[in-house]
């Protein structure tokens, strides 16, 4: 998809002005954090599990080449094939080649963020192949031709009414009197519509929550069971995954799974956890004839040597989104691309460049709540600041802000000058405010006073009063 990250400010204003979006976000902020907290409290070793999960991914990043090669060997031994793709275009072409070779007309899909990252649906459509999303949330936004607004709850920005309206527009066979005002009714309608696609699809594309090196398996977690139908029914199963999804062993995978569901939805474990290890073997009751893993780099290997390496530990649980005050205020679409929230604000500049994403690392209060809930203990605020450092170095921050900071630093490093400049200003403002003790409007502070009163200073600075006091006169 095309990015609108550079229009973050406009996107955010639109989001803040949408009552339905605000209602959806309020619900999300009320539900997800509470469920995560309760799940964590139910498990006495949750903090130790976070450390263990973090250590697994750290170890993998230290030896990424080794584990990726092991994984490829195992997949090949299992009768599958690994395709190494440097960028989105290579991944798209690889997938299209496979689809064309097997004469695919319909492709079912189960949630893959990498699929969004490489915009595979658009590409397949342009080439005459029909992709069908089978995760309910993904299906809804596919009908609306929208990107996901949340990495695990892609349609979280929509109200039930909006979903019903979307269904009526697309499912033209629906009788007008058919009630669609309950989640169950929507689910039943989607299920009925999707069932024939599951049965006729030639290729199933899934993402991967993890790739296991020792077995050559990919791990998928869902709550709807659609992933199982996507990878067992079609003749060909294509897994799209980025290179950092690897873990060494099955045991390691289960450790990560234990923190993943709890951090994401507050579940102890997701309803379905599938392990796929290759094509159907002789004697297997079901499974695809072909099994492909499209391994995507798309700039990630480059991050290993940078201060942004830690973001490669991310397991896409969405906890940082759910706890972020900025995400809570503007939702996922404001970020303008596939990812959002704190992990998105760190990842998007890495994948699309700072020229496109300069707002995202800046649009954060650095409140630190994301890091405090991240199951992989990713120092997200530190990396947001590191991006700001880069943006400053690349002179992508506004000239006014740069000059302002330099002037401020010049003065702040000279305490006597600082006091000579600030004391009269503070005194004047204190006098001007009068008994109301606040301003409704202040020049140069329009950003603040458009929506907030500005508190008046008391009048004299502390340093002035202290210097005038007995204490101040006798002390250095």
């Amino acid at each position, binding site marked *: 998809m095309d990015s609108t990250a550079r229009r973050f*400010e406009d996107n*955010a204003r639109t989001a*803040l002005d949408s009552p339905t979006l605000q209602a959806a976000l309020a619900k999300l902020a009320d539900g997800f954090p509470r469920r995560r907290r309760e799940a964590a409290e139910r498990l006495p070793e949750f903090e130790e599990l976070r450390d263990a999960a973090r250590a697994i991914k750290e170890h993998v990043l230290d030896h990424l080449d080794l584990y990726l090669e092991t994984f490829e060997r195992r997949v090949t031994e299992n009768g599958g094939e690994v395709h190494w793709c440097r960028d989105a275009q290579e991944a798209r072409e690889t997938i299209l080649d496979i689809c064309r070779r097997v004469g695919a007309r319909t492709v079912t899909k189960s949630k893959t963020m990498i699929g969004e990252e490489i915009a595979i649906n658009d590409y397949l459509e342009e080439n005459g192949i029909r992709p069908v999303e089978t995760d309910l949330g993904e299906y809804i936004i596919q009908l609306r031709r929208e990107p996901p607004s949340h990495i695990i709850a892609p349609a979280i920005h929509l109200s039930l009414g909006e979903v019903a309206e979307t269904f009526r527009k697309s499912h033209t066979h629906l009788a007008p009197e058919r009630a669609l005002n309950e989640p169950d009714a929507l689910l039943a309608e989607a299920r009925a519509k999707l069932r024939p696609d599951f049965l006729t699809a030639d290729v199933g594309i899934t993402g991967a929550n993890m790739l296991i090196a020792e077995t050559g398996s990919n791990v998928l977690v869902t709550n709807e069971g659609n992933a199982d139908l996507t990878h067992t029914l079609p003749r060909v199963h294509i897994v799209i995954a980025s290179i950092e999804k690897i873990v060494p062993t099955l045991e390691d995978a289960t450790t990560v799974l234990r923190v993943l569901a709890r951090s994401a939805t507050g579940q102890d474990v997701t309803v379905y956890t599938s392990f796929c290890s290759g094509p159907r073997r002789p004697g297997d009751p079901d499974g695809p004839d072909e099994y492909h893993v499209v391994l995507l780099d798309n700039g990630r290997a480059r991050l290993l040597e940078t201060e942004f390496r830690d973001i490669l530990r991310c397991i896409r649980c969405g906890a940082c989104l759910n706890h972020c*005050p900025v995400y*809570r*205020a*503007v939702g996922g679409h404001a970020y303008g691309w596939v990812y959002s929230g704190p992990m998105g604000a760190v990842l998007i500049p890495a994948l699309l460049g700072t020229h496109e994403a300069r707002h995202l690392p*800046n*649009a954060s*209060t*650095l*409140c*630190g*709540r994301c*890091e*405090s809930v991240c199951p992989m203990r990713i120092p997200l605020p530190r990396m947001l*600041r590191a991006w*700001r*450092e*880069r*943006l*400053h*170095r690349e002179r992508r*921050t506004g000239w006014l*802000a*740069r000059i302002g*900071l*330099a002037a*401020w*630093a010049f003065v*702040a*490093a000279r*305490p006597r000058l*600082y006091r000579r400049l*600030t004391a009269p200003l503070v005194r004047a403002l204190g006098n001007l405010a009068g*008994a109301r*003790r*606040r301003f409704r409007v202040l020049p140069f*502070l329009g*950003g*603040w006073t*458009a*929506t*907030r*009163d*500005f*508190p*008046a200073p*008391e009048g*004299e*600075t*502390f*340093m002035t*009063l*202290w*210097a005038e006091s007995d*204490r*101040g006169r006798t*002390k*250095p």
Partner: protein
Amino acid sequence: MPASPPPAPISPKVGLFVTCLVDLMRPSVGFAAVKLLEDAGCRVEVPSAQTCCGQPAWNSGDSADAATVARGLIAAFEPFDYVVAPSGSCAGMIRVHYPELFADDPDWAPRARALAAKTHELISFLVDVRGLTRVAARLAATATYHDSCSGLRELGVKRQPRALLATVAGLELREGREAETCCGFGGLFCVKYPDVSTGIADVKTADIAATGADLVLGGDMGCLMNIAGRLRRQGSTAAVRHVAEVLADVTAVPPIAGT
């Protein structure tokens, strides 16, 4: 990470880092801090060569300017047993980020680390270092406490202000469900992205209203100015004060942004 602090002297020499917002906006908080520290047996001095901790530059990715300002602060406060600031954000800047800021500077890194190790946020210093368990203060009010992000997550300031507030005669404390949620101030964020900042502040002010409190307390002037500014614009009459004012029993001065 800062080394463990040296053993506490009987009557330690404390350098008060007033912070720029307290200095310019609300000197009463500075005097309240002096009173609390002296009541807790400290000898308090206010070095005159102090201005700001450098956080605005640091959070803007401007390390060079942040370091320029930080060097002045380090030099000014080195002679003290402790550095105490009535702000979790500024204390966190010194304690957590100064060592990062000077990590690659062989001359200043040890000085930054040494200062970091003896720097504290005011209320946690009183409780955790000085062992204060109660204050002699009185205020008839129903208050709710806002946990500022840096103090809470960088320095672990949470129970200390509540423990002392519980000993203020006449004061009832009501917890907001969103007490630990950011207020949307975020330093320069609030003027760079004012719409988003206000959206975040609205969650906070709605939560304050839901508690029914007539007084909002917190430990950081930035947050308090933001919350007070939004409350006033919304027509709320809830008063906003720095927690040190209440604990030091100096509440004669009008609340932040009036009432």
